[in-house]
């Protein structure tokens, strides 16, 4: 029972912390550009504003369009709930492994793309087609990274992966470095950050993710945006806890949990800074460079797999 309560709290923290991470990245970016910038908690204000606003629906909207925000958000939240964020060994982490996590993302994306095409505007369709192009290349790379990790720690379950890493002797896995770099690139593509997509743009013709949700208003838009923030958070936790697992609570005592919370907060804030620096230093790529970018991610993950087979198999 205690475990379930903790799991719920952990999932809640993940969902409610997500806007802060997005706001944090934005804030750091502003500081890097010598701008004042909105405070990191601005996304909470934006979301609460959107939740209070009226929903405007196109005459052309089908039920898919109305259902999609709820589906996308709940599937993403579900994906978040299986993440070992603060502690491992919670009952939720036994539900799903990392391949299911990839499946959750695919499901959310499927409805997102459907919603983009639903009202029949040119921008929505354009966004959906671009999103599918990017994800069709990002997904194999992501899976390849996941397989590399799974082979190294002999499990596809996120919690047992982390436990195996924590209890095992501290050693440097070359495969992890390759997979980690590959996963970073996939994260950038999948969460729609520069240089693949620009979350801050107002130019309809250049958008990927934003183009799909252009027609959304009010509560629907809030859910879609929150889901996107949550996705960034999940990827952040994935990278932070798989590649730098130290701090995650194995035993469920108040002390270890506090350390776990502090550790993940610190790791995510640091990751946010890295993301902000990269986004400030790069211009957005030409759309058709994205395949090369994700090809690189795939090759890195493949190298990780090969180096595991060659160097690490005993």
């Amino acid at each position, binding site marked *: 029972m205690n475990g379930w309560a903790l799991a719920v709290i952990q999932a809640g923290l993940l969902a409610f912390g997500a806007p802060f991470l997005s706001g944090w990245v934005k804030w750091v*970016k502003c500081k890097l*550009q*010598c*701008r004042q910038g909105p405070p990191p908690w601005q996304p909470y204000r934006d979301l609460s504003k959107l939740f209070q606003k009226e929903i405007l629906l196109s005459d052309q909207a089908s039920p898919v369009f109305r259902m999609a925000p709820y589906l996308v958000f709940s599937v993403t939240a579900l994906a978040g709930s299986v993440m070992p964020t603060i502690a491992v060994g919670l009952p939720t982490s036994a539900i799903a492994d990392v391949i299911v996590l990839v499946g959750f993302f695919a499901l959310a994306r499927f409805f997102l793309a459907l919603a983009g095409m639903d009202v029949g505007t*040119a*921008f929505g*369709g*354009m966004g959906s087609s671009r999103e599918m192009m990017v994800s069709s290349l990002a997904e194999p790379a992501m899976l390849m990274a996941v397989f590399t990790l799974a082979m190294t720690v002999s499990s596809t379950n996120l919690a047992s992966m982390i436990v195996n890493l924590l209890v095992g002797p501290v050693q440097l896995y070359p495969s992890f470095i390759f997979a980690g770099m590959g996963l970073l690139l996939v994260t950038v593509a999948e969460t729609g950050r*520069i*240089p693949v997509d*620009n979350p*801050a*743009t*107002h*130019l*309809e*013709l*250049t958008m990927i993710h934003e183009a799909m949700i*252009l027609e959304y208003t009010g509560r629907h838009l809030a859910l879609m945006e929150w889901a996107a923030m949550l996705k960034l958070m999940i990827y952040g936790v994935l990278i932070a806890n798989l590649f730098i697992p130290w701090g995650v609570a194995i035993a469920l005592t108040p002390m270890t949990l506090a350390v776990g919370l502090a550790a993940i907060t610190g790791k995510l804030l640091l990751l946010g800074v890295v993301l902000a620096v990269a986004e*400030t*230093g*790069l*211009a*957005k*790529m*030409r*759309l*058709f*460079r994205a395949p090369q970018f994700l090809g690189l991610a795939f090759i890195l993950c493949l190298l990780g797999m090969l180096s595991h087979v060659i160097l690490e198999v005993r």
Partner: protein
Amino acid sequence: MRRRQPEQVTAGKVAEFVTHLTRTVVTTGQKSTVPGVQVCLDVAGEDWGKAAEIAAEHTLRWSAAWAEHLSPDFHVVCLLACSDGHCLLRTRLAEGRPELPSQMPSFPAANRPERHIQDMFGIRFTGHPDPRRWTRHQAWSAKEFPLRKDFPLSGSPQLKTPPDCDYPFVPVSGEGIYEIPVGPVHAGIIEPGHFRFQADGEDVLRLEEHLGYVHRGVEKLAEGRDLAGLARLAGRLSGDSTVAHGWAACQAAERALGVEPSPRALALRAILCERERIANHLGDIGAICNDVGFTFALVQCSRLRELWQRNNAAIFGHRLLMDRVVSGGVNCDISPEHLPELFAEINELRVRVEELMPMLLEYPSLQDRLRTTGILSVELAQQLGTLGYVGRASNHQDDLRRDAPYAPYDQLVVNVPAYLEGDVAKRTRVRGDEVLVSLELLEQLLKSLPEGPLQIDCGPFARCCEGLGLVEGWRGETVAYVRLDETGRVMRYFPRDPSWLNWPALERLILGNIVPDFPVCNKSVNGSYAGHDL
């Protein structure tokens, strides 16, 4: 990387063209003088197209066309730029039979101006391959012609303007080809304009612009105004070119009346004009980089521009320098105690720009986006007669400050940066180069600021007169035609923003690019919607 191109002027000479024209075409023999141009020839209506053909043979640049209703005639005028000045062709049409051969077969640039005349006066251009309406949306009917004298200033507005949904865009058909309508309302705060793309996947097969959403009836509004009113109106034609249009309109009126402002007033106008150029170029460089997601440049350039404009407000009294140019001179001055401040500001900006531009021009991830994007070939730039930075990036160098200098530029040496590539990167680079050139000009102007009254009286008014103003604004050659009546009231004002000639270039340079590269191509051309829609 190729270097700056040497100085080059492609157009033919006025005298040769005039000799050829008078030999071949029936001119009425009248050579009226319009102050501001080398020569003004009256051509018979039926020879209108032939005259353009001859002009094209002499590689003159087609610059502008406008019409005027002087009952019982319509006058149609076209302005041609030669290497040693400008040349006006004029023809008279009877009200009963308003038809004229189109000049578009010889000069593609004549396309939209002729359609504008057609919408405004009901003059039909025979042989025009594309006689669709242009400026007229749905605010007035196809049978009403707002610039005819019998059309009331108040118009006959409907209670509610019907939606403009039946414009016949040129269709493209084929498997998998889809249309993307963009605008006139955009996601950002920019001017309204409609763009219709036909795309195959992400490749742009065709782009068609549909402008006119900010038509305010400037030409009609000008009628009956006094000179002060004209200057105010011209300054509001396009907010970013307020000095250029204000100066062009005032110059036209002053030339018509045969008065010349004091050297001090002219130097101050040039200072204002160069300050406007610098502010807009800085803003554009940042905005181009921002359109490819490189916010750093936007922030840096916005900062420089903001500091510059704050000084505009502190020294000249207006951030955008609006209403500083008035007929007969200027209404602002530089006191001697401001001079050190201005020199320091110029030095500071030069240091910043010299630091920033090479960085942006060599930054790999930025240049990957800007180079080879939106190429306008040298031939096409010449054929379309593109102006300003759009032309110069494609080695179409025309710059009035150098080629047909007016005071005070006749005392100065103006370097014109030009390149061959014609891509977005070069259009950005030309802007950076021009900022440095302008800073140098500003220094020279400030060092030798002559004495004289700020404003002189333009009167007395005795006769009906006309004049042409030609000013190199930040977008390029800015034209204003003004006719005044005996009391000094405006009878006809036609401003020609450089955007008229640059907008068509955008339709061409986007071909072969992908849809998501359109915003940066558009920003690199940065045509004025308001200046074009009138």
